[in-house]
Each structure stands twice: as C-alpha cells, then as structure tokens.
C-alpha cells in the first residue's frame, strides 16, 4: 500500500472495492474518509454519538453500494459526499432525500478510461480552486454545504442582507465554475 495517503487515487481504490470486493482497499479508504465523514457530520450539528453512528452507516453504505460507483462520472470524494449528505438529511432533518435514477452500466461494460482521467484532473483543479478562494467566499460555501443553512439562515447568522449573501455565493460559484467547466458539460 502507498504510504503517502494524500496522493492516493481514491477512485481507483473504490473501483477495486467495486470490482473485487477488496477488503484491504476498503480498510485504506476507511482510514482516509471515515474521519472526514465524521468531521462533516459534526460540523453539520450532529452530536458525537450520532456522528459516529452515521459515519459507520455511511462507510457501510459505501461498501454495499460500491457497484454503483462510476469513476467516469464522479470522483470518490464526490460519491462519498452524496452518501454522507443523504445520511445527514435523514438523521438530522428527519427527511428523505429523493435520489435521481441511477445510471446503470451493464455488468461487462467498464467506464471509459479517458473520461476517468479527465474527471480526475478536473476534480484536482476544483480542489485547488476551492483552496485559493478568498476566505469570505470559502466561508460562505462551507456554511452552505456543512451547516445545513439556507440563504436566509446565512443572512440571519451573519447579519448580512440576503442580496449580499446571494451575490457572494454567486461570485464564489462563478470563480468555481471556471474550474468546473469541463464537469458541467453533458456526457
């Protein structure tokens, strides 16, 4: 196993789990993502006990649904984020999150490797774009994604008028959109 976990290709690891039910790969994936999923849940307002339980549920779902992971459509972090988000809505807001119909691919078809590589590059670019956002913009995006805040709730928390919030999120997203242009195109 690669010692430097930060440079691991997690989509590749997840594909191993998908295709070979590879338990060692799952252990590595767990080591990397479980603490992040739990941090995400804690920051969303879950108690320590609830965050631990939900994290375990999320990681169990990752194993169970690995056959649905398509590395040409989503990075591992993207896919795991959607599972964690759904669990968060279920546990913290007591609602269901209706899911788009899964795009299934036949048992023999493998994702197009060119698409996989392009998606991987775009995801790295997106990470860099996020990391270089001005503090204020990044803060708002974080609040939107982690604290389960609507635009108007953000306004209440910060005391800023709604129009300002909307345009700041807009501005942040416009900057992100540059990095996401490739992701935006229909496949």
């Amino acid at each position, binding site marked *: 196993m690669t010692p430097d976990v930060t440079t691991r290709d997690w989509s590749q690891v997840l594909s191993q789990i998908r295709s070979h039910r590879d338990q060692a790969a799952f252990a590595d994936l767990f080591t990397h993502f479980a603490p992040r999923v739990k941090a995400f849940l804690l920051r969303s307002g879950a108690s320590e006990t609830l965050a631990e339980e939900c994290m375990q549920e999320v990681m169990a779902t990752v194993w169970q649904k690995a056959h649905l992971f398509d590395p040409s459509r989503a*990075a591992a972090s993207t896919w795991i984020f*959607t599972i964690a988000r759904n669990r968060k809505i279920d546990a913290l807001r007591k609602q269901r999150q209706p899911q*788009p119909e*899964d795009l299934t691919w036949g048992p023999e078809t493998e994702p197009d490797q060119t698409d996989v590589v392009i998606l991987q590059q775009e995801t790295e670019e997106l990470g860099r774009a996020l990391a270089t956002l001005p503090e204020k913009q990044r803060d708002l995006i974080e609040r939107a994604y982690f604290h389960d805040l609507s635009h108007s709730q953000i306004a209440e928390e910060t005391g800023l008028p709604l129009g300002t919030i909307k345009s700041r999120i807009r501005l942040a997203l416009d900057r992100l959109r540059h990095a996401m242009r490739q992701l*935006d195109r229909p496949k």
Partner: protein
Amino acid sequence: MTTDISHHLTEPLLMAYSAGTLPEAFSLVVASHVSLCDECRARLGAYDAVGGAMLEDCGVASLGANAYAETLARIAERPEAPVPPPSADLATFPAPLRDYVGGDLDAVQWRAVGGGVKQAILPTSADASVRLLSIPGGAAMPDHGHRGAELTLVLQGAFHDEDGTFARGDVEVADEHLNHRPVAARGVPCICLAATDAPLRFSGLMPRLAQRFLRI
C-alpha cells in the same frame, strides 16, 4: 434520455439540492427532472464535486476506538445490495417519483377536484408540499399568483403560459412575482409534478373554491 428539454433547473436549486437544504417536496421534483435530463445531471454533478472537495478538505475527527470493526459488523448485517433493475425507459414516471407513488402513472390514487382536474398529494415533510396534477387537454388551470416558490415538472402532455411552452421533462421555476395561467395543450391530459412552499393564492371566486379542494 430525452434531449429536447428546453426548460431546466436554476443554479440555486441545483446547489441547494446538492448541499441538502431543500425541502423534501422540492428535492423530489429536482431528482425527477435530473433523472430525465442529462444536462442538469452533469450540472448537479459539478455541485456535488464542490461538496466532495469540501469533504476532502474539512478536517478530520477522531473515531471511536472500535469504529472500523463496528463498521464491518454493520456490513455483515446488511444483505449485499441487489443489482438495480434496468431503468424502466417506458415508464411515464422517473424512478424517484415511482418510489413515492408506489408505481407508475397507473398506480396514482387520483382525487377529482372539479373541471376534470385531478390531483394526488404525495407524502413528504411538512415544510413544503408536492402533488401530481392531471389537467385535461385544452383546459386552463385556475389563475393564481404565488406567495412562495413553485416548481413544476411536466411528465406527460404539455402546458403553456406567459413563460412559454412546457413539455415532458421541462421544469418551470416560478416565484411570487409570476402570476400565471397555464393552459394544457390539446390532446392527452397534462400530467405535472408540482411542489409549492407556500399556499397559492387564486384570484376569483371559483378558483377560491378550487383552492379549498385542491388544498394548495
């Protein structure tokens, strides 16, 4: 997938769905449109990728002492997920909607609300509501303005109003400023999935009656 969709979801709706802040009723319409629309699926994928990047970058929490073993135990308790059935391309309703209805169009428990219009309210969290509407071809919906947001997805037939023509897969995003009078196109009944986050206000006496029966 359909390629002739011309009315799509807005950026705020896609971002809110991705961040998980929409009421369940609106999420159902978003998920249903995305099921039919490759373009919005890709746009949603971009917002989910933002969420994924934030997840990568949001710090780490210390886990319970036996977190990994306990997770394996949870896995052992679960059945292997069955391979999902191939998407029912011939269905009128996309999968997330079939989930709420308990089947396709023929499984809907319609309730007549007058003028040939039928509706079925679907069970969701109380912060907004979502219903299926069936409007006879050529018939007009009652004139109404909105106090909140309304999101309407066409599943069969078509309607037109001040904003244009909406056919299968098209979604209309209306806010309190739009006072519209949708008319169903001639032919098959127009079947829509409509989410509202506030009671609609109808103008005129008949529509007021309809409002009571429609429970909008």
